[in-house]
């Protein structure tokens, strides 16, 4: 199979190449080039549902937020000089498979002598408009605010979400790779742990660690001959926060609301068919709202759900059976990946003492 004849470029935009671009920055130039290409293609900004950037300093989530694009496919091509060409190849694969209708591939370089050397890390609005006000560390700040709002809108309580952490710690006791192995905690322990930033308590927040994870993906044909029982990938979807986590209209709705339906449609299954979930859990509240947005629990009802459902590996709907990141630890970006690994492990039937019984079909939110 190839993408020959399956994809085409329909619009182009280019800015004059100059020694310097005074007064402009990279996102601004990206915006100008994007506008030209979109106009040239005779589509609207709102039609763009995929984005590919060079993926380094102008990573897709940042660019989508700055330009206000609402996409369901996004990636960085990260191929240095070949980033643009690679981007087009990736875009072709995406549109050919229906992952997006119109993919914007956009790359820019500013040569503005006034910029550069302004601070550590990537340029962004946070250094200018957020840090002077002392946000809590990293993502703690945004999720604290999201948690607060979820409590306000739906009456969710800390007692309810404490079950997330407690149940997952139970699962982690059977995970020799977990950073908190051998350290049980109770529901009350979660509620007694100190506030990092209200309403987030210490045991509701993930611990950054070291580690790594990897998988091998092959065709179904080759998988049939594998010595392991294969874990088939039945569908996948992507979602990005388009206006930034705190700027979007309702902060208690995550991009999973967009990506889950895509994945489910592709698979031909509905949320009801899922037998387990491995969901990103840097915070109890994040996992909670994503479970809602995926359709596994009605919006606003995650509190009562965790109150009344056994989500340990022994229970009726197992979630994060290896302890999740909250109890197994977060080795950076490998933390999210580990949810994929645990899902595969469970389907393959190799989870040992924490093996779940109904292990045919599960949902992963990475």
């Amino acid at each position, binding site marked *: 199979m190839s993408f020959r004849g399956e994809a085409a470029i329909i619009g182009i935009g280019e800015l004059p190449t100059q020694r310097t671009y005074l007064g402009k920055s990279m996102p601004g130039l990206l*915006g100008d080039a994007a506008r030209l290409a979109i106009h040239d293609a005779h589509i609207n900004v*709102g039609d763009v549902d995929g984005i590919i950037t060079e993926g380094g300093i102008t990573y897709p989530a*940042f660019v989508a937020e700055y330009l206000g694009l609402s996409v369901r496919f996004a990636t960085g091509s990260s191929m240095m000089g070949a980033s643009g060409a690679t981007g087009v190849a990736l875009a072709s694969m995406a549109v050919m498979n229906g992952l997006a209708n119109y993919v914007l591939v956009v790359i820019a370089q500013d040569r503005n002598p006034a910029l550069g050397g302004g601070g550590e890390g990537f340029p962004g*609005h946070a250094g200018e408009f957020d840090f002077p006000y*002392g946000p809590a560390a990293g993502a703690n700040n945004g999720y604290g605010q999201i948690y607060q709002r979820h409590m306000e809108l739906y009456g969710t309580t800390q007692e309810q979400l404490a079950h997330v952490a407690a149940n997952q710690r139970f699962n982690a006791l059977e995970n020799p790779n977990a950073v908190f192995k051998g350290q049980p905690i109770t529901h009350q322990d979660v509620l007694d742990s100190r506030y990092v930033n209200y*309403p987030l308590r210490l045991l509701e927040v993930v611990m950054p660690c070291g580690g790594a994870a990897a998988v091998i993906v092959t065709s179904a044909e080759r998988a049939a001959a594998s010595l392991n029982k294969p874990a088939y990938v039945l569908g996948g979807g992507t979602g990005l926060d388009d206006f930034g986590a*705190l700027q979007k209209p309702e902060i208690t709705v995550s991009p999973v609301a967009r990506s889950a339906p895509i994945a489910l449609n592709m698979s031909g299954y509905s949320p009801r068919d899922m037998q387990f979930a491995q969901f990103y859990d840097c915070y109890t509240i994040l996992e909670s709202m994503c479970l809602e947005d995926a359709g596994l629990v009605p919006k606003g009802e995650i509190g009562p759900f965790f109150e009344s459902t056994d989500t340990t590996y022994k229970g009726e709907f197992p979630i994060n059976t290896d302890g999740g990141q909250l109890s197994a630890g977060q080795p950076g970006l490998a933390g999210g990946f580990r949810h994929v690994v645990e899902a595969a492990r469970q389907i393959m039937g190799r989870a040992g003492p924490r093996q779940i019984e109904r292990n045919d079909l599960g949902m992963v939110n990475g």
Partner: protein
Amino acid sequence: MTYGDTPGGGKKKAPDAVSDYKKPLPNPSLNPEVSKPFWDGTKKHELWVQYDRRNNKFVFPPREVSPGDLTPMDELEWTKINGMGRVYSYTTVYQSSIPAFTEEAPYVNATIQLDAAGVRMTGNVLGLTKEQLMNNELHINQRVEAVFEDITPDWTLVKWQIVDEEEAPSAEE
């Protein structure tokens, strides 16, 4: 909020600037020229944001193109807006990654929904005691008003003072 930024990256002014302000100064790392009118405004104790004339909406944080429409900068007009708003959500910070802030904990970091449609700003909310904060007495939709704090000779921050909800007018007045 943009992930990937690291805190503590405040651009320090000339070393001989008289300032023992230890918290991060605003760092306009994206494009200082574009956001300058905002900071010039705060120095005058006024709130100025961009207005997209084509799509009839305010744009904040400041940008070179209007998000969602890509309207170019020359059609974004700086406009003075009213400093009134409400708390959209907030978190009470007990532990920051910036030591100078942790010293003052607990304090509030909030997202303010300004009356001006579609404008959200993050900031600190003032007017509650530490005890009230620890009892979670701040509530969502609390009315607030912008106040301006001159932190150094070059920078003025916008913070948010809680104010009472004014009672709706009634006929007999």
